[in-house]
């Protein structure tokens, strides 16, 4: 068995059925061995898309996603995707070819120090110098990527290691004495959490992606319902708690729901679970929950106290901790004060529901999201790109289940939406997958229309076309005297013709009702399609301006109750 075959065998042992990649000079040996292997390979049209697809696959399934690129430019093209996965703690394994060991350091053709380049954006990396190490390295990479706080792992494989013969197949895990994630929460701390909950009169829960990753959604629901506390989420926490549940307030943060942003500071206890308190979630730190006790549950000790001062830290896996906490709260009954508080918040929630009913032409994005929501089942997967499209989807779409809302949060990577949908669809072929994009971000990755066409991956790509780089345009409108510097995209391309040139069906939507109709048909047809939806370019979400506190949103927050 040669090194490349050992990679394939090891991937199969880890349960991998599909990898996303793009060949090149230093991976020719590997691709030659892949030729006869029974593992699917999806040829993307740019390496960045391979990383995003692996990421989308991981987020949709909870399994490790795998991407592959050649050395040098192939590897550096993965960097944005690896960085995206790192910031959002997504478990991917990125495999790169490298020039032969004897050429490393010589500035050989297509040589890049990808281990060095990615060092700050990977959880760990390996460079096998000997084919015998491959089985152990692949297995350890999966182990490291998927346990503790998940993250990307890089394996950089010199060409001659791909070709070299193994003397045996030893896949015992590489010893990592420095890697011991704390899964089990400290029971004394959990008891203290119970006591804080018992004392609280105005509790609130803030759930992040950690709840989804640790499969703690049932435990979260149980906690929220037991203690009768309203639940907010971060952007990536969407789906941790059913947003149609009447305890769900929706997203907190820069473009959060008004009820969340207005009332979080009124709580007397904030139970934050699997969340890192990013600046986009908290707004200015000194005016975020200044008088509220904070319990912070997270598997990564470095996140505790990093941004928000915490009264009670609990390091551990969200599910493990919540299970213990729920057991301790068995006999808990919410007091009248708690019930009054939650009733008040519920009532505010209904009053402050954002307006989604419009019949304007050009279409209002809120109305488009509403139509999409009316068609999609709870099992459908929505991926978003970055910018206004993302915030509209996050704000107006109620996500009901975990792993059904996929978005680039931390790195905020334009071009993530469409390729991550490809990965999600490969992971969950039974579920409809819809990707919401802006015209700017979609054009960064539009070459992947070829991928969905060639492999017949029935992803529904929606382009919300407003001919602007909407989020920056919006900032310029609100904060830079409407000086729209370099944010007008002009008339090119014609997205329908663009899709058709790749062999992908497409239609342009301009009127109310058409989105619903086209989307229903697309789901039924189950083939790749692009829906080019022309929307109002002046529509903007209210936002926290830079440096503002969480309850200092600017811009008019239009309410559904005001619709006549």
């Amino acid at each position: 068995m040669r090194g490349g075959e050992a990679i394939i065998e090891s991937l199969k042992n880890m349960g991998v059925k599909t990898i996303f990649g793009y060949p090149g000079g230093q991976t020719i040996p590997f691709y030659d061995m892949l030729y006869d292997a029974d593992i699917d390979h999806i040829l993307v049209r740019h390496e960045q898309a391979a990383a995003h697809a692996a990421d989308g696959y991981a987020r949709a399934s909870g399994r490790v996603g795998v991407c592959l690129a050649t050395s040098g430019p192939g590897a550096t093209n993965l960097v944005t995707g690896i960085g995206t996965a790192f910031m959002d703690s997504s478990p991917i394994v990125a495999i790169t070819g490298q020039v032969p060991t004897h050429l490393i350091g010589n500035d050989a053709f297509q040589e890049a120090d990808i281990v060095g380049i990615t060092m700050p954006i990977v959880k760990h990396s390996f460079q096998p110098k000997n084919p015998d190490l491959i089985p152990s390295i692949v297995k350890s990479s999966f182990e490291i990527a998927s346990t503790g706080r998940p993250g990307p792992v890089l394996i950089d494989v010199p060409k001659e290691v791909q070709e070299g013969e193994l003397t045996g197949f030893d896949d015992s895990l590489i010893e990592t004495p420095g890697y011991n994630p704390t899964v089990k929460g400290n029971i004394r701390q959990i008891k203290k959490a119970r006591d804080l909950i018992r004392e609280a009169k105005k509790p609130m829960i803030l759930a992040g992606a950690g709840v989804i990753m640790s499969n703690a959604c049932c435990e979260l629901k149980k906690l929220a319902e037991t203690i009768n506390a309203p639940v907010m989420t971060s952007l990536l926490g969407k789906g941790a708690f059913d947003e149609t549940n009447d305890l769900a307030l929706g997203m907190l943060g820069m473009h959060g729901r008004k009820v969340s942003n207005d009332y979080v500071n009124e709580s007397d206890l904030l139970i934050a679970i699997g969340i890192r308190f990013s600046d986009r979630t908290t707004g200015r730190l000194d005016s975020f929950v200044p008088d509220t006790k904070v319990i912070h549950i997270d598997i990564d000790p470095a996140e505790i106290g990093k941004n928000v001062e915490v009264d009670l830290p609990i390091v551990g896996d969200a599910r493990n901790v919540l299970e213990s906490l729920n057991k301790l709260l068995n006999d808990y009954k919410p007091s009248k004060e708690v019930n009054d508080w939650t009733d008040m918040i519920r009532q505010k929630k209904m009053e402050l529901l954002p307006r989604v009913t419009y019949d304007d032409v050009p279409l209002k994005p809120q109305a488009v999201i509403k139509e999409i929501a009316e068609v999609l089942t709870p099992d459908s997967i929505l991926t978003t790109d970055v910018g206004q499209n993302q915030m509209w989807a996050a704000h107006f779409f109620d996500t009901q289940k975990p792993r059904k809302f996929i978005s680039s949060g931390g790195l905020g990577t334009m071009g993530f939406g469409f390729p991550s949908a490809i990965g999600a669809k490969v992971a969950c072929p039974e579920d409809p997958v819809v990707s919401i994009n802006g015209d700017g971000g979609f054009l960064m990755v539009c070459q992947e229309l070829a991928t969905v066409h060639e492999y017949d991956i029935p992803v529904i790509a929606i382009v919300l076309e407003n001919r602007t780089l909407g989020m920056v345009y919006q900032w310029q409108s609100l904060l830079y005297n409407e000086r729209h510097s370099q944010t007008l995209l002009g008339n090119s391309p014609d997205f329908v013709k663009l899709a058709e040139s790749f062999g992908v069906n497409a239609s342009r939507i301009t009127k109310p009702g058409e989105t619903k109709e086209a989307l229903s048909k697309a789901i039924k047809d189950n083939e790749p399609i692009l829906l080019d939806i022309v929307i109002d370019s002046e529509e903007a979400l209210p936002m926290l301006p830079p440096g503002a506190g969480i309850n200092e949103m600017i811009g008019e927050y239009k309410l559904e109750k005001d619709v006549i």
Partner: protein
Amino acid sequence: MEEQYHIISTLVEDKPGVLQKVAGMFNRRGFNIDSITVGNSEVEGQSRMVITVHADEKGLEQVTKQLNKLIDVIKIKDITQKAVKRELCLVKVNIPDVKARAEIMQYTNIFRAHILDVTEESIMVELTGDKEKINAFISLVEPFGIKRIARTGLTAMSRGV
């Protein structure tokens, strides 16, 4: 919060790139390393890094936690309070006249330093001690003219068990 120096003793895996990872983490998180020394530890395959860093309490906590997150980092200990600190310094000092040579040799004796090399024009002194001792010696010989200084940076070990 007040910033002060901390000495962190770190046991790491002896693998290529570990120093880069540790140094890179400090840089990325905005912490300044004052000095870093690396060498073999008592365990084969593991090295000990002694890092001095200027940080406040919260910063130190972050540094420690972020270091701990690196998979190649095995153990971390803040030994600031009870550390024995040592640094090695080589100084090459000018000899402007015979009187100077005698004076430098006298200082060398007082500081329990060693002379490693002497020529007509210069004298090389090897000195170990904590930072203050080394700084004191340097400022004493400075008037003669210092040709070169090479310092290892601080290494340290906690007292007792």
